[in-house]
């Protein structure tokens, strides 16, 4: 192992001590669930805290990340995109090259090890785009655990290929017909399953939302992205990046990239939300840009609701960003001004997708294309000596590709 790889794995630095003992990031976060789940969350928290100190656990996690996931993922200089934007250097953190094609596997590998350590035989997950469902089904197959994935009925239609992948991996995919039949309803249903089967079931939550300890736990497992990027950028360019850009649905890839840089004040951070058909109407999913503080899915955070406090249906071209809430740590980063949150519309994301594909030979996920779109504007306004890093996931939504084919010049 090289020195820098060694550093990546065992960097003792804890940039921020949040959340506090009760899972709060300032006024955000916490544990707003029914009493039946409280003890399960306390047990999960204990197991997670123990795993952080447990050298054997960490060593096994590192091995899995290296040999099963394929880490570290490369840092890639997108030269033609850089030339196109005509400003700062554009650098991709290639999470698309991970096993199963996204950052989601970093988290599921970690949570599966926790599930095993806690003696659970059955795992459940919610999924929107299907990416987290696939990543959960993948680790469940590998550890020989039963896996049930809850997915909104509408998303099942939008993401048929990922449903097929989950089934091939042996998971049961449950179609959720309630509410808006998308990610938020899948999360409700997974919580209901967990309440009912709490003795033998581990809930692999897919993003940095939900009740404590999930926002912190999922962040910790995804922070490998930022830790690697930090070391790689220093090794390659001799300094830290000037900015970080990541798409935000629940916010797991973004916080994974941001977290190790939080105390590096010179590094700007931009979270890119789905502005859908525009931030002025209601057809978007930009909870930080256009929402307000409330309580959803177990934590206090920014969310999209109506004046009666009913959660609103959202819209985004990318199922992975189509969520009315956001992780509480992002809410905190926004309010304390450490990170800035912006919106990118469906059209802008599609345009960036096309550009990235044609200029770099990399097809980003539509989620990541939101980050690319914002990054292109950012780069154009930055000096050439600057560079920003974005987390890129893989485009594997063949059915959407067909549906949208008419919108791409070919």
């Amino acid at each position, binding site marked *: 192992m090289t020195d820098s790889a060694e550093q990546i794995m065992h960097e003792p630095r804890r940039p921020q001590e949040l959340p506090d003992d009760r899972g709060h990031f300032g006024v955000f976060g*916490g544990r707003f669930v029914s*009493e*039946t789940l409280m003890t*399960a969350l306390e047990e999960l928290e204990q197991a997670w805290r123990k795993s952080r100190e447990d050298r054997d656990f960490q060593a096994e996690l590192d091995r899995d990340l290296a040999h099963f996931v394929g880490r570290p993922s490369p840092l890639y200089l997108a030269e033609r995109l850089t030339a196109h934007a005509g400003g700062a250097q554009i650098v991709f953190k290639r999470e698309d090259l991970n096993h199963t094609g996204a950052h989601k596997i970093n988290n599921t590998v970690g949570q599966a090890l926790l599930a095993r350590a806690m003696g659970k035989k059955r795992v459940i997950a919610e999924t929107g785009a299907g990416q987290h469902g696939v990543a959960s089904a993948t680790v469940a197959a590998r550890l020989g655990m039963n896996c049930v994935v809850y997915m909104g009925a509408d998303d099942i239609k939008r993401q048929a290929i990922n449903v097929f992948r989950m089934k091939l991996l042996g998971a049961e995919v449950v179609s959720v017909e309630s509410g808006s039949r998308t990610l938020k*309803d899948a999360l409700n249903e997974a919580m*209901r399953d967990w309440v009912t089967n709490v003795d033998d079931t581990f809930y692999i939550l897919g993003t940095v939302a939900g009740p404590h300890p999930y926002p912190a736990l999922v962040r910790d497992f995804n922070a490998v992205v930022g830790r690697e990027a930090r070391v790689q950028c220093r090794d390659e360019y001799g300094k830290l990046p000037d900015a970080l850009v990541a798409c935000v649905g629940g916010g797991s890839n973004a916080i994974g990239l941001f977290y190790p840089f939080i105390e590096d004040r010179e590094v700007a951070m931009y979270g890119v939300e789905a502005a859908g058909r525009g931030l002025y109407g209601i057809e978007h999913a930009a909870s930080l840009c256009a929402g307000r503080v409330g*309580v959803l899915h177990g934590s206090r955070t920014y969310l999209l609701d109506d004046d009666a*406090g*009913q*959660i609103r249906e959202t819209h985004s071209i990318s199922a992975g960003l189509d969520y009315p809430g956001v992780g509480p740590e992002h809410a905190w980063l926004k309010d304390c001004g450490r990170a800035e949150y912006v919106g990118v519309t469906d059209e802008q994301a599609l345009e960036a997708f096309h550009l990235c594909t044609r200029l770099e030979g990399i097809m980003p996920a539509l989620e990541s294309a939101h980050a690319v779109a914002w990054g292109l504007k950012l780069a154009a306004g930055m000096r050439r000596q600057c560079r920003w890093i974005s987390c890129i996931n893989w485009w594997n939504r063949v059915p959407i590709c067909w549906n949208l084919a008419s919108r791409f010049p070919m």
Partner: protein
Amino acid sequence: MESGADLLELGIPFSDVMADGPVIQKACQRALERGTSLDDVFEMVSRFRQRDAETPIILMGYMNPLERRGIEAFSSQAAVAGVDGLLIVDCPADEAVETTRAFDADGLYQIFLIAPTTSDSRLERMVPLAGGFIYYVTLKGVTGSAALDASTLGPAVRRIHARSELPVAVGFGISTPEQAAQAASAADAVVIGSALVDRLHGCRDLSEALDTVREYIGGIRQALDRLAGESTAAAS
């Protein structure tokens, strides 16, 4: 009330009822589709209060509609309407500092759930915050779930009584008079939710609904009274 209920629990509809089973989910969906608002709920309580000043009324709901109204505004409006207590499903004692402060100021009780999974140490931390009564959730699951396991109830309720003076009500999974009687033999009160909502949903009009409720609640009441009679007989 006429058929023998002692306390009324009224749900505030919410779009994302995470801890509820299909019956309450659908009831919420129907209520929201018909535009039922928080103010409508308060209005129902006020109207009920004009005819009945005694029967305690509990509102049951989720945090976000409260947050949107503002916790203090919500609390004072509930008190004015004649509400006695609040059960906020997704607000466990750990997160209840703000709500209990507001409710205390308005003379309202915050009712907390205790689950089979609640540890002794949690129980001890929660008891001082609880008001009105303690609601023991009989099973691991959502509202309206399958059957009640009466054998576990006795020890569970004794565990709570050992730490709190408050009456213990049990709920979740109770639908028949037999189950109600079994539960009542262990606890101070029984709560029936989904089973009643489900029966109401099947009704075509108000008079059918009233008949259904009278018959159903009447049956439960009889079973409970019979039990009370037996235990008195046994005691004398």
